[in-house]
């Protein structure tokens, strides 16, 4: 059974939990084994490098060093999240091509008793592993519930096809690996010219108008081509297209309804796995109608357990309970 070193990342553990659950659920069907990097830390997303450039490489360096120490007979480090994948790949890439950087990262790692020899693990995205190692034939052979009639927009976002240091996706703007997998599951792939356009990343936290327009374009594009749902391969993209689709609708007073799920959830469905176990029902924009098209009953939507906050006095925002931040009280 092929083994891989697996880096889940912070988002996959929480906001993108359905991505992690469905990925772990399909590994048995596909005959692969993902072994988590022990005690991995955050990859820094797009934020850490903005304020601490060299430490951001040391931050990722620790993960690479821990992965390289893992002795399960493989050197392939797999990430599902686009930002995690890029940061791991980028650190390894620049450590290979910039001796001074490699030296400084290793000097920093020494302070923690670690070392990383650039190139000693191969960083790959989950999509790359599924299509190139497992292969379409094997995927097709495992389909017991073809997603016949389901119209899917394959959405890549940015950081898997770009910058793609090791040229794994052949095309920065029009890759087609995700479409091939979705087709192998029996679904209809729609034309989706915006498939590698940006979801806005962290822009919702910086400039709403900018962020919501980027989200609107993507949702509008999928809607125009009558997609039943969008298939995503990144936690950030899914959060923006799903949770923030609701906010975007409020912002523009629109009523788009294009569910966005992870491509691994669709694979699990086609392999006959239980929809609830695959994390369906956790999306903000319900995929129930899309699932009904292929005869799958969606798990009941998880209703908000917490009552909505009462009207707040102006200027005293207390809509959410405060987090516990040791030593950092507001």
């Amino acid at each position, binding site marked *: 059974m092929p083994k891989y070193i697996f880096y889940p990342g912070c*988002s996959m553990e*929480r906001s993108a939990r359905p991505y992690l659950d469905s990925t772990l659920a399909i590994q048995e069907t596909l005959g692969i084994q993902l072994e988590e990097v022990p005690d991995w830390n955050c990859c820094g997303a797009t934020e850490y490098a903005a304020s*601490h*450039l060299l430490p951001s490489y040391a931050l990722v360096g*620790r993960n690479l060093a821990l992965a390289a120490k893992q002795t399960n007979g493989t050197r392939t480090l797999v990430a599902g999240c686009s930002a995690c994948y890029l940061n791991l790949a980028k650190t390894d890439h620049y450590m290979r091509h910039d001796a001074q*950087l490699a030296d400084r990262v290793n000097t920093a790692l020494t302070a923690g008793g*670690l070392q990383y020899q650039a190139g000693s693990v191969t960083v790959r995205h989950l999509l790359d592993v599924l299509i190139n190692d497992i292969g379409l034939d094997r995927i097709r052979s495992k389909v017991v519930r073809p997603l016949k009639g389901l119209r899917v927009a394959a959405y890549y976002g940015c950081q898997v096809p770009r910058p793609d240091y090791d040229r794994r996706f052949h095309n920065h703007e029009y890759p087609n690996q995700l479409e091939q997998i979705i087709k192998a599951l029996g679904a209809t792939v729609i034309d989706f010219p915006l498939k590698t356009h940006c979801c806005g990343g962290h822009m919702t*936290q910086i400039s709403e108008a900018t962020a919501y327009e980027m989200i609107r374009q993507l949702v509008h594009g999928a809607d125009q081509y009558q997609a039943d749902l969008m298939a995503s391969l990144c936690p950030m993209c899914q959060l923006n297209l799903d949770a923030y689709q609701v906010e975007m609708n409020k912002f523009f007073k629109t009523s788009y309804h294009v569910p966005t799920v992870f491509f691994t959830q669709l694979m699990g469905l086609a392999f006959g796995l239980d929809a609830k176990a695959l994390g369906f029902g956790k999306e903000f924009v319900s995929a129930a109608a899309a699932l009904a098209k292929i005869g799958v009953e969606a798990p009941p939507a998880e209703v908000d357990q917490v009552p909505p906050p009462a009207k707040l006095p102006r*200027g005293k925002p207390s809509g959410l309970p405060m987090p516990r931040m040791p030593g950092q009280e507001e």
Partner: protein
Amino acid sequence: MAATPGDSRLEMCIQCGTCGGSCPSGADMDHTPRALFALIRADLRREVLRSNTPWYCVSCYYCTVRCPQEVHITDLMYTLKNLAIRAKLYEENPAAGLAETFTDQVENFGRSFEFGLATRHNLRHRPFSLPGLAPLGLGLLSKGRMDLTPRRIQNLDQLQRILARAKQLEEAV
């Protein structure tokens, strides 16, 4: 700019503007990347570091892969953000605040913590947006897609030693 890993090829820019034309948030930038590179050449340091351009960069890498001169534009934006923070030329800038809040969490927990990030960031920079965002936060909580408390890595001490050494090395340059 030399802190950018690898060879950024900044000096190879031919001012063609492919970057600005490819940028999804270019319309909100006060200078397109091309214009910013011209300002760097003109040595207008203050103007460059006060620009909102790097902060509107969404790291989509369209400019980087389309640049005919293979300038590492996205990487240069990260370097510029670092320089702007160090020079304290980023007032009224929620993007820099987001980066700093996120950084604090990574250094204190070893993991990112979405709930703490969203609340602290929005309290600092956009307090009036919080009630409006409450349904989103509650939705994430009730769907099991967000934690109320941060998760810590076990060997946090090791990570902090590594990051502290990296910061020393960076400041020594």
